[in-house]
């Protein structure tokens, strides 16, 4: 039962991360990677962006945007290593490295957003 709950937990993070990675990240890439640098849209100023980031709701949004896709990556990469390399005996190591990586990324994102501006 415990194992079952674990799988449901990690799959929920994977699934939520997948939705964000598929829907929101392309919007950010389009805006900040193409539209603003190429002048398709008027780019906001640094001060304007900083003012936005100071809003708690924007920080929460950015935190979720950074964190959940990392868990999506962790789940995919775990199974890519697990099945792709067929290293069943390293399951615990792979598990720890993948989700551990996502946790480190999440903590780092939280730290940077918390200490911003």
């Amino acid at each position: 039962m415990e194992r079952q709950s674990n799988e449901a937990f990690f799959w929920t993070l994977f699934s939520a991360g997948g939705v964000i990675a598929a829907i929101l990240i392309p919007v950010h890439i389009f805006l900040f990677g193409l539209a603003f640098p190429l002048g398709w849209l008027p780019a906001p100023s640094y001060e304007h962006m900083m003012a936005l980031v100071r809003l708690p709701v924007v920080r929460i949004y950015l935190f979720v945007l950074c964190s959940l896709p990392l868990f999506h990556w962790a789940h995919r990469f775990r199974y890519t290593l697990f099945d792709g390399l067929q290293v069943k005996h390293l399951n615990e190591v792979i598990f720890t490295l993948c989700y551990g990586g996502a946790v480190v990324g999440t903590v780092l994102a939280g730290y940077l957003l918390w200490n911003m501006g």
Partner: protein
Amino acid sequence: MADKIILEVARYSPERDAKPSFQSYEVPVYKEWVVLDALNYIKDQVDGSLTYRWSCRMGICGSCGMMVNGEPKLTCATFLSSYAHNGSKVRVEPLRYFPVVRDLVTELSDFLVKLTKVKPWLIRHDEPPLTQGEFLQTPDQLDRYKQFSMCINCTLCYAACPVVGLDPVFVGPAAIALAQRYNMDSRDQGTEERTAVLAHPEGIWGCTFVGECTRVCPKHVDPAGAIQQYKLKAALDWVKSFVMPGEHKSKDVRSEAAND
């Protein structure tokens, strides 16, 4: 005069051979011939010792599934002529990942055990008296499970699924799709009883959503979709177990009872 094609057929007799080998047969190609017709031609005209399973010849019985040029196919629904144009050979092998009984015949016991474990039948906790009449269903209620009910247990999806190959304890696509066929049926009350087997690392969580099962299904069932549907349900149940712990506990007791 019909064109000819070479059929490379896997031959294996466990009592006699250390490992499977291939035997080549030249067979005529008629426009209306399927791979199964070619095997029947070999059996009747060339080599009566060739062993394979078949029955209905019309994609209903699900017994003539084989690997044709490395792809899981129903041989009764796979035209020989579609392989003939590059003058090449057609390689026919038993379905991948299954033990072989002889030549092209696979051993299905393991699949049948898995299928039985998910209880693919209508489960009722109450049986209303016959005088109440039949269980009525709306077209919408029928649509929810109808596509999963088209499964003919041909096991092509098992031969296509890399997880089945890597992890033999995985319950597998067809069994999960059939469990979902009954879970989605408005007449069924057995969803909780199926949870212990389905929401398990050897059940839905074993699936990594490769999607090959859905691609090869000759009856256009979507087992990959059934598994994703059930993953979402299991994840929501898991979330609910925090919101409403009492209800979840009673479910566990029932699941464990179903396990025994």
